């Protein structure tokens, strides 16, 4: 059984049909990426998975149950944690407060304290800046904070929307090293990226979206080698 399984998912913005019926699945412990051009429907698909956008058609099954109609906060409590595009850190709360907020619905204070240590271990930069407000961090640090905050909820499925967006090359490298580290520890990940090469190199499987439809799907190594994908997305 897949951790998350999507069938015929469509997402509409008013009259605009952003996603026109896609099927995808992510197995437990897998890293899957969605690649595609601007406006291909990547972010819309992911927002529908998190519950931030309603599904116009299709079903979303998560851990064996239908969650298509479940509101965002209840999906979060069941373990679907999303790091939104543009990061969404709480700008006037300190780094430590942001991280505490990630564990909002948890009540095991010992576990929370342990996880706090764990994410500070993953991102030593955040420990240094724990008393600073989120809004005063650099872009890369905010991305680290957003990922760390998502991890604080002990998710079963982590959704990452464009983690490289707006970051300097050095910061992108750091973020993706950490993403690979998190994946190696067994986290299930669904990743959206404009930077297709980076996404495919960090994942085991990939879907290629075009105009709201899935046009290719394969192992990431195969997609990296595919002449079509190379021509359209890898600039080679």
């Amino acid at each position, binding site marked *: 059984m897949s951790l998350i399984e999507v069938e015929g998912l469509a997402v509409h913005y008013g009259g605009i049909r952003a996603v026109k019926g896609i099927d995808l699945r992510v197995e437990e412990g897998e890293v899957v990426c969605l690649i595609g051009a601007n406006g291909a429907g990547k972010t819309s698909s992911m927002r529908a998975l*998190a519950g*931030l956008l309603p599904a116009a058609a299709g079903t979303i099954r998560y851990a064996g149950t239908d969650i298509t109609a479940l*509101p*965002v*906060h*209840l999906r*979060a*409590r069941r373990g679907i*944690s*999303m790091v*939104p595009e543009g990061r*969404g*850190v*709480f*700008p*006037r*709360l*300190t780094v430590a*407060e942001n991280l*505490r*907020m*990630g564990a*909002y*619905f948890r009540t095991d204070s010992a576990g929370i304290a342990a996880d706090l240590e764990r994410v500070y271990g993953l991102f030593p930069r955040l420990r240094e*800046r724990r008393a*600073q*407000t989120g*809004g*005063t*961090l*650099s*872009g*890369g*640090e905010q991305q680290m904070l957003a990922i760390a*905050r*998502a991890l604080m*909820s002990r998710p079963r499925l982590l959704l990452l929307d464009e983690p490289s967006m707006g*970051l*300097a090359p*050095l*910061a992108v490298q750091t973020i993706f090293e950490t993403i690979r580290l998190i994946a190696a520890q067994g986290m299930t990940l669904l990743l959206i990226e404009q930077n297709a090469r980076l996404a495919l190199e960090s994942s085991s499987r990939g879907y290629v979206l075009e105009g709201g439809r899935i046009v290719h799907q394969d192992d990431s190594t195969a997609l990296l080698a595919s002449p079509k994908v190379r021509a359209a997305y890898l600039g080679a």
Partner: protein
Amino acid sequence: MPDLLPNRFYRDPRLAWAAYAALAALLLTLPFLVDAGMGRSWVRILDFALLYVMLALGLNIVVGFAGLLDLGYVAFYAVGAYFYAILASPQLGIHLPFWALLPLGAGVACLFGVLLGAPTLRLRGDYLAIVTLGFGEIIRIFLNNLNAPFNLTNGPQGINMIDPVRIAGHSLTRPIEILGLKLPGTHTHYYLFLILTLGVIFVAIRLQGSRIGRAWAAIREDEVAAEAMGINTRNMKLLAFAMGATFGGLGGGLFAAFQGFVSPESFTLMESIMILCMVVLGGMGHIPGVILGAILVTILPELLRYIGPLQEGLIGRVAVDPADLRMLLFGVALVAVMLFRPQGLWPSPVRARELHPANPDEVRQEQEALYDAER
């Protein structure tokens, strides 16, 4: 109590206790000091200042904690006041006891809070402000017109001869003698309001530090991210409206019993704006700041009363009517505060640091972080 005292008081508990004892002694003797020094009318102003502290703390829950701009807060104050006035006056010939009506009135205001909150859940910022403004006006217009077909509110004339607060059968409007000390009505109301204000402060502090308070902070900062943290933003926003309205209703009941008279004129948009000014001037979301704001905005306009006699003494006639000056000076003060202290007179430490970093090291660190990112 967090944030109420400078740092050195936390390090030395004896110092903190001494400060609290001095504050308690001041608060206990204040009506007598003010009465002796400035006259009975100033004790009344003090009573109003306490009332406004309660109201401002209530609005601070909605605006400061949850970040929902409410321009119709006075509606809840009106609901509390009229609820008490209608059920404890000759208006309908009903005279229910004060101590039963006060919590009930707060409860009714709370329901109105949910009533306002429910349809506005999807609105933000300016749009929310406009709808709440309309809500405040609707309530006032209802109060103004509900004298027909059935005379519930007595229309623009308002309701008179409202029952005063009674404690153990004794009306607070009449002087009372305790241990040889003669307490006039203004003084006894002061102590009653003081106790209730301390209660409201306590509740506000506990709320801010609770899980609910953290959820409100998250919603204020970024509503989508708050939802993604597993926070039920709908319920939490409703709860903020309900809690704020409850405090407003409480203040309304006290106002009606204290004044003995209510009319729609007391619940205009201007009143909502004054309460919002208390919150913003003092320091949104910071409880001590909001208390300070409420006290200043209540007391400072009263000082203008002295300007008339002062002009007569200096130039022999009243050249500028103090009533005209009131709004002018208030406007100037607002502009000045927004220019020089946009975070409020007494902001929370985090907020103050963000707008005026006191520690140059921190600024340098931030700049280095930016430099790293650019490299």
